[in-house]
């Protein structure tokens, strides 16, 4: 009960912060960045559930984002559907693809699963590039129309930001509910030991698939939001590099928390943006930082910072505690 209360407090805090943010930030650019962070957060929430709770690695999550983004783009630009319908289709397609691909892939474990998802991601990217009748290939699709609510087009930075923030809050609440539910407990059992879970009567295959499908749906939603926010999609956005970035966000944030998704997404997005000014050195710095964090803080920045804080506290003179 107490845990549930803490969860709702957390979500409430996130909601308040999200609403207050535009007041604090004047520049459109910052709101745009915040929207991107929000979009990444939605994907990472799904990844956290998949990797952190169900213990399944996915190195191809960008593929689902790309599928969602292109679904929205193609349906609104080429077919002329309403953007909301396009978004619904994006979510559905993300979920459907995950379902189809998940059935055979989730039979694999460990490294094999990682490589399987990687291969799937690479193939989706190649299809996006090569099936140019549908996707316009490396030209990309531009002029994606904005979503509109009550007759008002959601084009400005603040309005798009609010939409994304709303989706983040809803996704967070959803994820939080799942974690505390029967499904969540089953997932944690699977992560702890699949064999033990099976013997306790947990239908591991079904739960793994359900989580995978959910992560695909969330990624699809994020992709659709991205398409309408940036109004242009290109295959290279949804390649291996983005998949890796997403995994890094999940791990950096500490895979097992809701907060972690926000922290991880924010950290990596902001760092990548900041590093861009160093141009040539940006890749070098990113790689170095990534390695350093994974070597010294593999539990994520959250836990790493906590460990550091505790260690510093213990080092203060006169505060030696036995057995701490």
């Amino acid at each position, binding site marked *: 009960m107490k845990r549930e209360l803490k969860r709702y407090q957390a979500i409430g805090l996130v909601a308040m912060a999200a609403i207050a943010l535009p007041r604090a930030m004047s520049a459109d650019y910052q709101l745009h960045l915040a929207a991107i962070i929000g979009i990444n957060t939605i994907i990472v929430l799904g990844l956290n559930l998949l990797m952190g709770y169900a213990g399944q690695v996915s190195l191809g999550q960008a593929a689902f984002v790309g599928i969602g983004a292109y679904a929205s783009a193609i349906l609104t630009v080429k077919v002329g559907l309403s953007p909301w319908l396009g978004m619904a289709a994006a979510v559905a397609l993300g979920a459907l693809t995950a379902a189809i691909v998940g059935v055979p892939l989730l039979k694999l474990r460990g490294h094999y699963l990682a490589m399987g998802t990687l291969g*799937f991601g690479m193939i989706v990217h190649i299809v996006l590039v090569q099936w140019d009748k549908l996707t316009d290939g490396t030209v990309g699709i531009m002029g994606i129309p904005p979503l509109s609510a009550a007759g008002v087009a959601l084009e400005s930075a603040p309005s798009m930001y609010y939409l994304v923030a709303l989706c983040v809050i809803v996704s967070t609440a959803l994820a939080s509910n799942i974690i505390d539910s029967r499904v969540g407990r089953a997932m944690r059992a699977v992560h702890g030991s699949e064999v033990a879970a099976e013997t306790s009567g947990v239908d591991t295959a079904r739960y793994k698939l359900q989580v995978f499908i959910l992560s695909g749906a969330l990624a699809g939603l994020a992709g659709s939001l991205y398409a309408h926010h940036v109004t242009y999609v290109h295959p290279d956005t949804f390649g291996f590099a983005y998949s*890796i970035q997403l995994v890094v966000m999940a791990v950096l944030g500490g895979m097992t928390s809701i907060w972690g998704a926000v922290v991880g997404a924010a950290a990596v997005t902001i760092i990548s943006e900041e590093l861009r000014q160093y141009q040539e*050195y940006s890749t070098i710095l990113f790689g*170095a930082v990534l390695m350093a964090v*994974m070597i010294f803080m*593999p539990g994520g920045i959250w836990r790493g910072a906590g460990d550091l804080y505790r260690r510093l506290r213990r080092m203060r003179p006169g505060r030696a505690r036995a057995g701490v």
Partner: protein
Amino acid sequence: MGRSSKVGDAASLTPPRGPAGANGEPGEIRSGMAPSVSSLLQYLVSGVTLGSIYGMIALGFTLIYNSTGVVNFAQGEFVAYGALVAISCSTTLGLPMPLAVLAALVAVTALGAVLERLAIRPARGSSVITLIIITIGASILLRGIAMKLWGPDALPMRHFSGETPMGFAGASVLPQHLWVMGIVLTTMIALWLLGERTQVGKAMRACAADREAAQLVGIPASRMVMLSFALSGMLGGLAGAIVAPLAMGQFDMGIMLGLKGFAAAILGGIGNPVGAVLGGVLLGVLESVGAGVRSEFKDAIAFGVMLLVLLAKPTGLLGRRAQ
């Protein structure tokens, strides 16, 4: 950025033919026409050449995987550095070819050892996903350094013994093709001898088979781990140096080569050295033939094959280790 580079393009390993003769063109045969014997033979030549390179890369993966259980995502970067160092030595410094190749070998071997010491050793005992991300970080770092040192453009390298193609039953074989196949074959034999006949080699195999047991009989496991990284570096570096004349050297050539090399390792059965080489050659031929038929999906062939193997028989063709 992020597009599959020309390197690893099966077609670019074949000598230009006919008036158009542009490098990187999908090939002499237009899709839709039935391939003739000579063109099939041509695909075989470039396929086996490319496949030998994939095999070397796959072998590097296997060595490290066997000794540490880690998938080294930076393996492709070993190849890139091998190519680029060889190019620098031969073109910029004007060193004779054998010295340039040797320099590349030594440099990347050292790189492998350094990577193990600085990145893997400190993170010993971490989870699978952590180690994967560390090697991914290493590959990003190495790629960034390579771009700083050698720039973004593709750099050419002189062929070892000239570029006059030799006719062979209608197929055109470059001397460099023979160099690649010959050197890879020699390396394989040398490695086999190392594993069978030398103390060090046997120690490494023991460590890979059962680390604790090996330590019990006095084999320094951690040193074997570093050796496997160094050896992996050597293989990758050599592969890069010998394929550079055919495919050029570029800072990001490692991405696709690494991934495809890993696909080859999975095809042959990860953990099995013979499987790695076999998988490499097979993948090279499949890709070459596939590229000749339908060039756009050339890159998808490697990943498609890998997915197929993972779904049908994850342990691969010659799979030995269960996990």
